[in-house]
Structures are given as C-alpha cells and as structure tokens.
C-alpha cells in the first residue's frame, strides 16, 4: 500500500466533548468500507494486506486530547505481548507530532464505538492499521493546526509543531489548549503523509509502552479486574470429550459456606459465592451428570487423522505433478505427524461481568471484542449496544481467546445474583476445554530429475479444523471453501521454480474443539515440507541451502525468500557438517508474505536434543520497531521449539490429558537456546506480518540438525519422546 493517493477526506465526522478529560476526535468510519466478501477468505488469511473492518455505522473514538496535553489512543486491537500498542503509539506519534511519552494507548471499550470487526490475530494489527492510523493522525494534526492558526491569528504555513505544541506569531498553544478553545471543527483533506526519512519513532527500537507497568506487576490483566460488590463464580465443566450436560444434584452446594446462589441453567450449572475458594469448594460438591457418546482414546484420533480419509481438496496445483509421481520411478515418499497442541497461556480465561436491568459491563481478556459482545447480548436478550466490553491486557492470547463463551456463563451468573461476578477457569479446565491446535498427518512425494533438481513435489495434509467451527467464520464458509485455510496455512509449496507441484488437503472434524493456535498450520506443515526438502537435498547430493535456492521462482516473493535464506545461512556460518558434536539444520517458510529462515545448532545430550543457538533471518516489510520484531522472532523460536520438541496432548478414556504444566512438558529456561541471532532484512514495503511467521521453520530446522547427529530422521512431533 503506498502513500500516493488522490485527495481524500473523512466523510463523516462527529465530535465528542468530554468536559473533564478534553476533546475527543471521533472520525467516522465510512473510510473503512472494505467488506469481507470483497476479498477471498484465502487471501485474507494468507496475505499481509488484511483490511481493517470495523462497524461502519457508528463514529469511532480514536484519539482523545487531555487538558494535560496527553493523547489517549483508543486501540481496537488488543495487546497480548505482541507489541501492537507500542507500534501504534509510534505510528500515531510521528504523524500527530507528539512525543512518544505523550501518547497513552488504551484498549477501546465497545462503548467508544471503536470496535474491531476482524479480531486481533493473524499477525495483522500493524499491517492493517498502518495506513488508516497514519491518515487519521495526520488529519487530526492538521485540524489542530488549522484551529491554532485562527487562535494565534496567523497562517497555517507559518506554524511550527513539535511535541504537541503549535508555535506561530511569537506564541505557542498546546493541543490541549487548542481543543479547549474550539467548538466547531473543519475536517481537511487527508494531508500528505511523512516520508520514512522524516520518522522520529517509526523504525526506532522504542521501549515497549507497557514495559514499566509489566515490570511493576500492575493490575492490568482480565484476571486482575474487580468491581465494587463483586462476588466470585465457578462453573461445572466436563472433563470428558463430547460431554452433554444432563443435570446436577446441587443440594450440598447450596449449604456450603459463602455460597450466595447455585445457578441452574439448561446448559450448565454454576455457583456464586463470596470468595474464589468458597465458589470452587462448593462447585466440587456438585454432582453433575453428563452423557457422552463415546469413550475416546488417542488411537481413535490417530485413525481419523489420516491422509486419504474423507474428501480431498486440491489447494494448489501447477503442471502435472500427480501424473509424474504416480507413474515415474524412484519417487521418494515420506510421512510426518504432529500432535494435539494446547495453548497453555498463563492467564486462564474468564471475565468480570456486571449485568444490570437493561445493560451489562464485561471486563475480559479477549481477542474478539465484537463476538464477545454479541454472544453476551444474545444470551441476555439485550441489544449489543447495551453491552460494554472493556478489553484488558491479555496474559497470553495465541488464538486461545478468539472465542470467549465463558463470558456468557459469567453474565448468566451475574444476572442471577444481581451483582458483579468474577468467574474464571481452573487450569485443569483450561487444558481440557481448550480449542486445540489440531493434530496432523502428512504424506509428501517427490521426484528428482537427472540433474538432481525437483521435477515434481506433492504435499498431502490431513488435519483437524482450524477455521471451520470458529465464530469468526460463518458456517457457510466450509462448503464454499472446502479446505480449511487455517489448517493448510504454510502447507502450500513455496518453491515455485519447481515445474510441477501440488498441495492437497483432507479435512477432519474431530470430537473436540480445534481452532487457532499461533501460526495455525504453519508449524506442522513447515516441519513436514522442510524435513522432506532436506531428504530430497541429500538424495540429490546437494547442500540443503543451495538446493532450496535452486527451486525459487524469479519474482518479488522469490527474491525476498532467497535473500532471507542467504542471510540466515551467512549469519549462521552455515555448514553441513558435524563439528565438536554439534550440527546445523536449515528450514525456511513464507507466511502472510513474510519469508523467514532458521538455522538451528544442536547437539545430543543425555540422549536428548539440545538446542544451543538459532539464527533467524526475516523480511517483514517495513519495520516499525526493530526491537519488537526481534522479540517476536525470539519468542516464536522458543515457543515453536517447545511445541516441536516437547508438547503433546493425548486422549485417554475420554479425557484430554495432561491437564497441568509439568506433565504437559514445555520449554523452560534450561531448554531455550542461549544464543539467538536475528537478521532483519528491511525493505520499504508497508509493514507486514511479524507475530507468527517466525514460528514456521523451527521444528524442521531442529529435526534436520538432529538427523545429522543421529542419522535417524524424526518424522513425528514432539521430537523428544516423554
């Protein structure tokens, strides 16, 4: 998306005067009319240019200028550690001509009208707001300058602006003073935006704007919220897959100490008490009855997730790969699997809800503000506008909070007692009622020509759903698309220099919830494809890095991928040999138009893979905050390492297990690589995706390295068996 646009004006404007705080500038949203149906769903999830889609009818509050000359930025995107608030502050500060310290980013409550219709996820927050936010901030700056010119009795051209202070005609006015003295605003054309060379904050490693609060342990998360007179709720949840609530004997619970009310609904039973412990203990005395249709085991799930089961959808095809692979000799075939993955984010799900006669307030960690509001409204029989969702900082998102039905239960409890109720999952419930990363099965086939180049390659993927069944997509999406875009994210062949290639998807609906897990299918798909590329390279007798470069197409995407591969190899000092008991492994992926490559350096210690160093190269388009890009790479690398090496859920006697940290093994301090080098390749495209792409290559990079030490190809995640 470029800066060059014809004259544009925000066509609707409404201004909110807040007498105590200052003046808010709410800019109407007809600008944002790029409805979902205009872009293909596949494009939405795979491209970096996800549209910002908000509720287009209401004016939305973006900025508020306070009397103290601070600017409050109401963010429709939530902050879950991915650094979005910091990036938005930098972008706004540059065009607004304020210092970064003057901007305070807050989560926009739905009452502000600034409601994100898409969700925070898919690595799209910065990329989707890059253009709109700059335009709004620049417009607001010009509005303030225009008013200042009047108030100072001079021309706009004679004004200078710095740090929220407008100077002209020998005098100065702060933004706060300007807004206080203005009653009627003119909205100018959107001005020319700054050039990259003019940025003060964009492109700089500005420290996170929420850093101090997080280091001080500020009460900023959903779990920390409270309202006056608040009570505590607990809901009985099943530990069996597919359990349907039949009824419950709550007689003992009614008499437990601290219990205010036992709440019986057709679909659940819960209890409200005066403390969390009282609610939990009362809940434990409830004898709930569930019916389940089947006593599921892991072997049942494994039997379902098999390439060839169900109807295939070809999601990618060039040339005649099937004909070649079906008929020619010396075709290499390989199978790979990945397990059920839990989110395991540290802050459990829950909400603080206060339901009153005709309205409700919901304080909640959510990635889907709009859906949360709609579901609570539906259950309470109220108009969505009567519900104010107040999002909080998330103690981890990772896709877990792209659906928040727990808000419904908390609302029902609050309504039943007529008081605010705080209701949160236990950790066991968190593990057993997750919307998991689905297990996968892959079969790859490949054929080399006489020069050792890939003549044909095919990736077959069987996976549980990611997108289908999520409230973000209407039920109609499944039959239209056929294949689940989330499941085959990263599953297409990225080496388009290969003359014949295809990717085929088999969709499986599992008996438990599977959905969005950071980077969706990218981790498992890249593990399979990039392990297979390693096998093909060895079969061809070629260096794996060189082998990949040979198959990249000659276009912009191919160029960017090649540069990233070369940069990673160079920085790592790539060599395909074992030195002092250590070996390197290589892998690369392209996700949402962001190519990324890893070199993992590992050894085997006490019979287990040990990761010493990871070198990462990434091309995320323009970099808003290089320190945060680096942080996202570091986090993705270790989280991906954790999932690839250690994590897995099993199904035993109808239960998803384990249900506690420890038995659900994850990477700890001792497991994380002591060295991580990140090379950021910048270009002047708009900012692209960063939050997920670096997850892709890590599984295969580690497995490929391990192969060089053990000569045993690891084909199943987790790589380390427990």
């Amino acid at each position: 998306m470029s800066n060059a646009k014809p004259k544009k004006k925000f066509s609707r404007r409404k201004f909110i005067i807040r007498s105590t705080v200052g003046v808010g500038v709410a800019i109407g949203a007809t600008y944002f009319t790029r409805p979902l149906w205009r872009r293909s769903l596949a494009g939405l999830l795979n491209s970096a240019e996800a549209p910002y889609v908000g509720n287009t009818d209401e004016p939305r509050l973006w900025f508020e200028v306070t009397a103290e000359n601070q600017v409050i930025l109401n963010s429709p995107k939530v902050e879950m550690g991915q650094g979005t608030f910091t990036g938005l502050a930098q972008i706004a500060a540059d065009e607004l001509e304020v210092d970064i310290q003057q901007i305070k980013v807050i989560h926009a409550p739905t009452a502000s009208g600034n409601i994100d219709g898409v969700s925070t996820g898919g690595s799209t927050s910065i990329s989707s707001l890059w253009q709109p936010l700059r335009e709004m901030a620049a417009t607001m700056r010009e509005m303030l300058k225009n008013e200042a010119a009047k108030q100072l009795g001079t021309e706009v051209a004679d004004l200078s602006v710095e740090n929220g202070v407008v100077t002209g005609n020998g005098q100065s006015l702060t933004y706060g003073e300007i807004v206080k003295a203005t009653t009627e605003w003119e909205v100018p054309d959107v001005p020319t935006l700054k050039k990259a060379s003019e940025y003060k904050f964009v492109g700089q490693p500005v420290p996170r704007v929420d850093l101090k609060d997080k280091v001080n342990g500020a009460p900023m998360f959903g779990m920390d919220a409270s309202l006056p007179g608040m009570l505590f709720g607990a809901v009985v949840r099943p530990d069996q897959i597919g359990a349907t609530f039949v009824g419950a004997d709550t007689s003992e619970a009614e008499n437990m100490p601290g219990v205010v009310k036992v709440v019986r609904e057709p679909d659940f039973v819960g209890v409200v008490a005066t403390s969390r412990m009282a609610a939990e203990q009362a809940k434990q005395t409830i004898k709930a009855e569930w019916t389940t249709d089947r006593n599921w085991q892991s072997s049942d799930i494994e039997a379902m997730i098999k390439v060839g089961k169900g109807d295939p959808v070809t999601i990618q095809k060039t040339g005649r790969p099937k004909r070649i692979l079906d008929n020619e000799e010396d075709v290499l075939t390989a199978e790979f699997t990945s397990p059920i993955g839990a989110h395991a984010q540290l802050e459990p799900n829950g909400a603080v809800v206060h339901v009153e006669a005709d309205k409700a307030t919901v304080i909640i960690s959510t990635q889907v503000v709009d859906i949360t509001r709609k579901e609570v409204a539906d259950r309470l029989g109220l108009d969505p506008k009567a519900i104010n969702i107040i999002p909080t900082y998330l103690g981890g998102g990772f896709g877990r909070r792209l659906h928040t039905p727990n808000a419904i239960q908390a609302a029902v409890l609050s309504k039943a007692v007529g008081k605010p109720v705080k209701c949160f999952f236990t950790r066991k419930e968190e593990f057993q009622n997750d919307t998991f990363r689905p297990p996968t099965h892959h079969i790859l086939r490949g054929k080399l020509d006489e020069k050792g180049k890939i003549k044909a390659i095919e990736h077959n993927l069987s996976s549980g759903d990611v997108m289908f069944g999520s409230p973000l997509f209407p039920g109609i999406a499944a039959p239209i698309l056929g294949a689940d875009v989330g499941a085959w994210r990263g599953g297409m062949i990225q080496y388009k220099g290969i003359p014949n290639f295809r990717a085929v998807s088999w969709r499986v609906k599992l008996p438990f919830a599977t959905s969005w897990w950071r980077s969706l299918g990218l981790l498992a798909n890249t593990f399979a494809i990039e392990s297979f590329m390693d096998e093909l390279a060895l079969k061809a007798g070629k260096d794996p890095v060189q082998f990949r470069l040979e198959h990249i197409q000659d276009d912009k995407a191919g160029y960017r991928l090649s540069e990233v591969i070369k940069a990673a190899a160079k920085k790592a000092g790539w060599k395909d040999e074992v030195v002092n008991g250590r070996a390197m492994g290589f892998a690369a992926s392209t996700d949402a138009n962001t190519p990324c490559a890893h070199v993992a350096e590992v050894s085997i210690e006490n019979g287990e893979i040990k990761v010493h160093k990871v070198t990462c190269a990434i091309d995320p388009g323009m970099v808003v905050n290089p320190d945060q890009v680096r942080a996202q790479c570091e986090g993705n690398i270790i989280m991906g390492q954790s999932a690839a090496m250690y994590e897995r859920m099993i199904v035993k006697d109808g239960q998803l297990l384990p249900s506690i940290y420890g038995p659900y093994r994850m990477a700890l301090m001792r497991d994380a690589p002591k060295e991580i080098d990140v090379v950021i390749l910048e270009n002047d495209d708009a900012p692209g995706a960063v939050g997920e792409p670096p997850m892709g290559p890590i599984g295969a990079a580690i497995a490929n390295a391990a192969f060089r030490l053990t000569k045993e190809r690891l084909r199943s995640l987790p790589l380390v068996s427990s």
Partner: protein
Amino acid sequence: MKISFNINGQPQSLDIDGNTPLLWVVRDILDLKGTKFGCGKAACGACTLHVDGEAVRACSYAVKYANDKRITTIEGLSNGDELHPVQQAWMEEIVPQCGYCQPGFMMATAALLEQIPNPTDEDIDNNIVNVCRCATYYRMRKAIHRAASIQSQNTKTQTS
C-alpha cells in the same frame, strides 16, 4: 483464626480460615494483584513471592504459615520509586511480552540473587524453572546476568 504478618513493610492482621492459600489473601483480600494465578498447583511459578526472603509459591502456601513472617510481593520489591536491580535489568533488556508470568520470574530471580549474587548459566537453569508461554527466556537470561551486575555495582557503591 487470627493471622498477623508483615507485607511489603506494612503490618497486616486478618481473621481468616488458616488454610486459605496465601495467593488469594494477597490478591483478593489485600488487593495486591501483581502476584498471579497461573495454575494453582505450584507448577508454573506465576504466584512466586518471598516469605522471609525465600521464594515461595503462594498458591500452595496456607496463610496460617505466614503468621509472624515477612512477606514481599512484586509491589514491594522496589524501594518506592527506585526499582530493584532485577526490575531495572528487566527494563533495560525489555524482557516482558504479555507480562503475566513476569512478576513470578522477577521474584524467583531476586531470591536467587540474594543467595547467589553472581549466578552462572547453570545456576540460572537450575533455579529459574517458571513457565513463560511467550517464551521470553532468552532475554530473561540476559536480564538476570545484568541484574547481578547492577546489584554488585550497588554493593560496591554502598561500601565505597
């Protein structure tokens, strides 16, 4: 039962069921939200605070044991506006991402540095076993070494 203790330099006295986990006393009764609930099973360490200077997981510590003890939470780690060396280092290295687990890690680290002022990487591996899902371990390790350095500089400044 009546339980009295000192928390972050303030005396506190409560009449409460002695088996209540200290975590809920701190969070819900004393309204100190910095100490977090992650699992309630002493597995993740998000609830780590100090009892008489030692790291304790508050979700698995009955408040009756806190009688006559000195409790420090993340809110009490700093000295007014002056951040603890661990917090200073966490700021310098820009460690937190979502931030939810960080107080527990900072408290565990502060307890470590109290007894091992100059920890090796192996000391860090053995002592710091909390769970961070955002996986900020790489910067945490750097921050722990930095905190040790800040602390030793402070000590030199005090004694010189």
